[in-house]
Each structure stands twice: as C-alpha cells, then as structure tokens.
C-alpha cells in the first residue's frame, strides 16, 4: 500500500474513532437529558393542573359550604335567597348551573330553576344529610350535555341538620385549566374515577364513563399513585403519560403525549449530531488528505529524485520545509551532486584510461607489427645468407662432380670448370670473412691498429680496388683530395674496407655513365671524408635503416646489385670504433652523399 493511503487511513482511524465515541456519548446524554426534561415538564404540568383542579374544586366546595352556613339559607326567605344565588351564580360566570335545597326526606324544597323532585336515594343527599360536604361523581347534564357534578352540604340550624344544599356545578371551567398542559397535537388529557371510568376528557366529543382500566396510567392512578412513564395506551399507541391522583375527589388526572412527539427533541438532537458528524468527517477527510499529501509529497519527490539519480537524469529536489524531511532532501541533493561529480570524474578517468589503453594497445599492435616485420626481415636474411652460402657450394659441387664423371672432357672445358670452382671458393671466402668481421666488430673483439696515415693514400688504395668495376659501368670516379692535408690516426686496413664498401655501394646504385666524387676537407676539429654519387638515392625513411644488418633498400633488387647487406653495417661499426659516425644525405632519384669525420693526429 502506498504511504499516502496508509497515512490517510491512519488519520481517519485516529480521528473518526474518538469522534464517533464523543458523538455517541453526547447523543446518549442528550437523549437522557431531553427525556428527563420532557418528563419533568409533563409531570410538573400535570401536578400543577391537578393542583389547580383541586383548588378550583376546593373553592366550589367552600362556596357551597359557606352558602349552606349563611343566614340567607337559614332564613328560608325564598325570594331573598334566590336573588342571592342568582347574584352568586353571575359572579362565578356560569360555573353554577343550579342551586337547590332538599329537606331531610330528600324532597326539593327550593330550586332557583323552580325544579321539583325527590333525590333521597342519591348518595350525595345521603352523605350530606349525615353532615358532610359531598362531591358527586361526574355525569353528563341532561340539559347541556356538558359534564357536571353535584356538590351537597348540610344546612345546620342550632347544631342540627335542617336541610341539604345542593349545587349543580358545570365542569366547563376544567377545560380552561386543562388547556394549560402542553400535550401536543396528538396528546390526550382526561380524568378517571376510581373505577377507571373516564369522567372528564379534554375532547368534548368523547363519550364519558368509558372504562379504560387496561391503560397503565389508569391502573396506577386508581391505585392512588402519582408519576410518569412510557407505555402503550388504550389505543395501542406508544405514549408518555403522567398521572396525578386527587385523593379528595378520588379522581385521577392523566396527561398522555405521543412518544414520538414528546421526544421530537431527541430526534432533532440525533439529526443535528448526524449533521455535525458528517461535517466533522468531511473536515477530517479533507485534513487527512491535506496532511498526508503534505507528508508524502516531499517523500515522493525524494523517491523521484533517487530514481532520477539511478537513471542518470537527476534534478535537484525542491526543499519545501525545514523539518526532518526537508533536511533529508537537502542532504540528498548535496549527496546527489557529489555523487554525480564523482561519477563524472570516474567516467572521465575511465575514458582517459580507455584512451590510454587504446593507445597502448595500438602501440603494442604497432610493436608487434614491427617485430613481425623484423622477424620477416630476419628470416628473409637467413634465407638470403643460406642462399649466398649454398650457391657457391652448389656450383663447386656440380663442377667437381662433373669433373669426376667419366665424361670425356676437352682441356679447354676442364679449365673453364676449374676457374668456376676457384671463383666460387673466393666468393665463399669473402662472404665468410665479411660475416666474421662484422660479428667480431660487433662483439668488440676487433683491436684497431692505429697508425699515422694520410687520407690521400687510403683513397688511392681504395680507388685501385674499385676502378675496374666502375670502368665496366662507365662510371667516372673523381678524387678531390689535396696533398697537404694533415695526417690522421686510424686503422689503415679497416678504413680501406670502409672506403671500399662505400665505393662498391656507390657503383652498385649509380646507373651507367654516372659519376662518383670522393673528397676530403680539413678544419680545426679534423678531416671530413665525403663520398657523393649521382645514383638512385633513397627515401628519407630508409636512410635510418641502411646501417642495420641484413638491410637491403630494395629486397627484390639484391640479386641485381649483389652483396648481402653487410657492407654498410661493417663500415658503420668501424667508424664507430674510430669514435665517429657516418652521416648520410640522400634524395630519392638524385644520388646520395656519405660522410664521416676523423680526428687529426695529435
């Protein structure tokens, strides 16, 4: 799961659990409080109403008792009494429907409505005739149809009960009292007697004396209890009902209210709490998103930065805050920059190393080529030497075998063969001497016999050796050496070999009718000997190699020019032994100049 989702869920859990608990507890408390307050109000209203009814009834009872005790009644002056009663009735605004007097036999002796009759069987008469002020049960008036009661009180004269005063009292006033109880639209307020009969109902259309004893409140109130409770009423509805027992009249006042209506406040509270919870939840979600976003964004950019670094397209991470993550981003940035620098350095180092390696590799390849070339040259040379050595041998062998054969050979032919043999012996000898000379000089075993000699003398000796060959090729040789040059200290024979070799080379590489000049110049340091020819010359890169052993400027031309590539090597070694070097200047096609400098004597 992604960090953002994890944080989001965590925040949600942290905030929603306590929120739910708080909401639930407040709802619970609120519900109880509302219920209690509703009950308290209803109970209070019922009590107050009960009291009000009590007071009103007491007042009526007192009225009757007072009238019964008054002199007006005792005087039995009917006209006067009637007038008094009418006045009393008016003063009480229709509460009293009728006043009448009964004698002790129950006959109506006086009625302000002029009614007659006998009520000796009625309990209110019996009770009153015993000396009590009595309140009858509620009944429905025959005339108005309204609920009425009859209050009786004894009329005493000189301590004896002389008559009974009865008053029909309309309960119309009770409606006004009962109205003060707030029971909502669906509620009911009614009064039951001890038998559970409804004797008064706020709804005038209700038929009275309807027994509803199965009602919980009715049962309770008929047991003379006061209180409040929730129960199912006689109509099968859930109600909140309060009941109040008025012991004096043995009435139970019951106020019932539909439970949903009574507790509408609880429903409202629930709705409000749900609304608040939803708002709070939305707020929490919003906050969780914002907070988890704020936390994960820098982490995400760290992740992207790290990925970028791995992939090689690193961009610095924006540092949004000064907290730990911000510092981590800063550290990451600086580390990444350092790493990138190190990487660059490493790459350039590797590149350098690679270049170096390539260079070395190339050098090795070149060296290898050079070695192979040298090897080829060497085997070429060996094969040449082997050829050079074997050719005269082969010639001598064939010649000898021919002479040995039984063939009849004439003297001239025999002589010819002998000459071949001798010539090849010389050739072989010379070659072997050359090789031996060179190896001796190279090994440093040749001891030079230094003596004082003149250059001219050496040049003449060498010229004698070469002139026949030069003449054959029609090459002119000029000696440009003055007689008065200082003598030099050198090995005579060795220097003649050098000059011979140089002459032989010059003749070999100079075409017919060319010219060779041997000259000598003296200066303070010594005498420079120069041999210049008009030969074929050579390329610059070959000049360095001509003193190498076995080297031939042109391999394929060796047979044409003869020799096996040892002459210049021998010469070079000899001049080196005289503490000097042979210099060569040459241009391809235009001839070559060889020169060396020798020390003067002393």
């Amino acid at each position: 799961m992604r960090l953002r989702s994890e944080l989001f869920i965590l925040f949600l859990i942290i905030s929603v659990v306590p929120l739910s608990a708080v909401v639930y507890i407040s709802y619970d408390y609120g519900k109880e409080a509302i219920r209690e307050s509703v009950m308290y109000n209803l109970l209070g209203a019922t009590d107050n109403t009960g009291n009000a009814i009590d007071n009103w009834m007491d007042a009526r009872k007192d009225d009757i008792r007072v009238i019964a005790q008054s002199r007006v009644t005792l005087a039995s002056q009917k006209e006067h009494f009637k007038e008094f009663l009418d006045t009393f009735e008016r003063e009480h605004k229709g509460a009293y429907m009728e006043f009448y007097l009964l004698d002790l036999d129950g006959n109506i002796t006086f009625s302000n409505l002029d009614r007659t009759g006998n009520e000796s069987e009625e309990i209110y008469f019996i009770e009153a005739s015993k000396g009590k002020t009595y309140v009858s049960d509620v009944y429905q008036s025959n005339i108005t149809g309204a609920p009425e009661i009859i209050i009786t009180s004894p009329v005493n004269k000189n301590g004896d009960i002389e008559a009974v005063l009865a008053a029909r009292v309309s309960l119309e006033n009770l409606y006004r009292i009962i109205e003060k109880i707030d029971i909502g639209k669906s509620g009911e307020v009614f009064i039951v007697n001890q038998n559970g009969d409804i004797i008064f109902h706020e709804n005038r259309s209700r038929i009275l004396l309807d027994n509803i004893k199965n009602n919980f409140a009715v049962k309770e109130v008929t047991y003379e209890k006061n209180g409040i409770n929730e129960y199912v009423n006689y109509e099968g509805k859930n109600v909140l009902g309060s009941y109040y027992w008025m012991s004096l009249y043995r009435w139970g006042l019951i106020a019932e209210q539909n439970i949903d209506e009574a507790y509408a406040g609880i429903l409202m509270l629930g709705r409000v709490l749900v609304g608040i919870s939803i708002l709070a939840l939305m707020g929490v979600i919003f906050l969780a998103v914002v907070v988890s976003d704020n936390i994960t964004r820098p982490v995400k950019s760290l992740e992207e930065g790290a990925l970028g670094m791995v992939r090689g397209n690193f961009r610095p991470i924006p540092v949004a805050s000064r907290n730990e993550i911000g510092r981590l981003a800063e550290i990451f940035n600086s580390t990444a920059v350092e790493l990138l620098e190190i990487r660059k350095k490493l790459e350039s180092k590797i590149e350098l190393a690679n270049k170096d390696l390539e260079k070395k590799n190339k050098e090795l390849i070149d060296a290898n080529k050079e070695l192979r070339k040298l090897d080829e040259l060497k085997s070429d040379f060996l094969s040449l030497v082997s050829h050079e050595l074997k050719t005269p041998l082969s010639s001598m062998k064939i010649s000898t075998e021919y002479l040995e054969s039984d063939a009849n050979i004439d003297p001239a032919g025999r002589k010819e063969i002998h000459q071949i043999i001798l010539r090849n012996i010389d050739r072989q000898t010379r070659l072997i001497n050359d090789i031996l000379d060179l190896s001796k000089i190279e090994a440093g075993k040749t001891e030079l016999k230094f003596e004082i000699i003149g250059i001219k003398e050496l040049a003449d000796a060498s010229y004698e050796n070469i002139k026949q060959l030069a003449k054959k090729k029609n090459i002119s040789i000029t000696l440009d050496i003055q007689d008065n040059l200082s003598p030099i200290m050198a090995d005579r024979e060795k220097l003649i070999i050098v000059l011979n070799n140089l002459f032989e080379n010059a003749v070999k590489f100079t075409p017919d009718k060319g010219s060779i000049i041997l000259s000598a110049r003296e200066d303070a340091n010594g005498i420079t000997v120069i041999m210049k020819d008009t030969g074929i010359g050579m390329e610059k890169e070959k000049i360095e190699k001509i003193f190498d052993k076995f080297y031939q400027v042109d391999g394929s031309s060796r047979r044409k020019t003869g020799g096996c590539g040892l002459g210049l090597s021998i010469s070079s070694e000899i001049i080196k032994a005289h503490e000097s070097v042979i210099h060569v200047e040459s241009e391809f096609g235009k001839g070559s100049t060889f020169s060396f400098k020798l020390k003067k004597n002393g």
Partner: protein
Amino acid sequence: MNWDATDNLIIELIKKNENISNFEISTILDIPEDEIVQRIGKISDTRSKILIVDDEIDTLLPLQRSLEVEDYIVVGASNGKEALIKAITDIPDLILLDLMMPEMDGYEVCAKLKTDELTKNIPVIMLTAKDTVREKVKGLDIGADDYVTKPFHLIELKARIKSVLRRSKNQ
C-alpha cells in the same frame, strides 16, 4: 622442337617421297646440301631437351655440361623473362628452375608457365637453396613436378630428371 618453315618444307618433301635424296631436296629448295643434312639431323634428333633457368652462370654452366654428357640437349636461361621466351621457342621436355632470381623469381616463372596453354604440360623441377617445408609446399602448389634443394648430388638430379621425363611421356 623449334622448327622453322624450311624444316617444314623438308618434312613435306620426305612425306611425299620416302626415298628422296638430300641432293634432290637441295635442288628443289635451293639450299646447300650440307645444310639439308644438318637440318634433317636436327629434325630427326630424338634426344630430350632440358631448359635450365639460373641467374648464377657458375651453376648453369657446369650443370649444362654435366647434362650434355648424359645426352640431353640443354638450353640455358639466366633470368625469368628469357626462360618464358625459351619455353615457347625451344619447346623443352623439362625445365630446371632456380627459385632465387632477381626481378622475376622462380615461383612467378613457374606460375606463368603453368597458366600458359603452350607450356603448362612441360614438367618443372625446382632447384633452390631454400629447404623449408613451407617453401617446398608453395613450389609444389604452384605446379612444380619436383623439388631439389641445393647443394644436390648430380646423380640424384639426373635420376629425378629421368623419372619426371618418364612420367610425362607416359601421360
């Protein structure tokens, strides 16, 4: 055998009339009788002809003498170019070819001989101081029929010449 037009005419005349005399031929072709005798001798010469190619005259000469003694006709060439010309004009039965020669070496000469229709059937024996296996194989690859290293025994060379000639005649 390098016969010229005159030789061909002489052969034609002899084919027409086997009993024709030298004098009659001499009269018909208007050539001295001595020359006719010489030419007929040459035409009827059945000896094998060997071309020796070697730049070393000191090797070529004693070898030529030795082979002439053995009754071969010997023609010499001192370089590759001369050898190629003589291989066509003299039509030798065998060529002894030296490998180490300036300008055109033995391998090149041999390769050229073996690619030319006129000369490819002439057997070649290579003579050389080079005696490594690699070089021998190279020579034989190019088409040489045999390979003799210098210095050699004359009798051995003669034996090889006979052997190669015998083989080439049988083919």
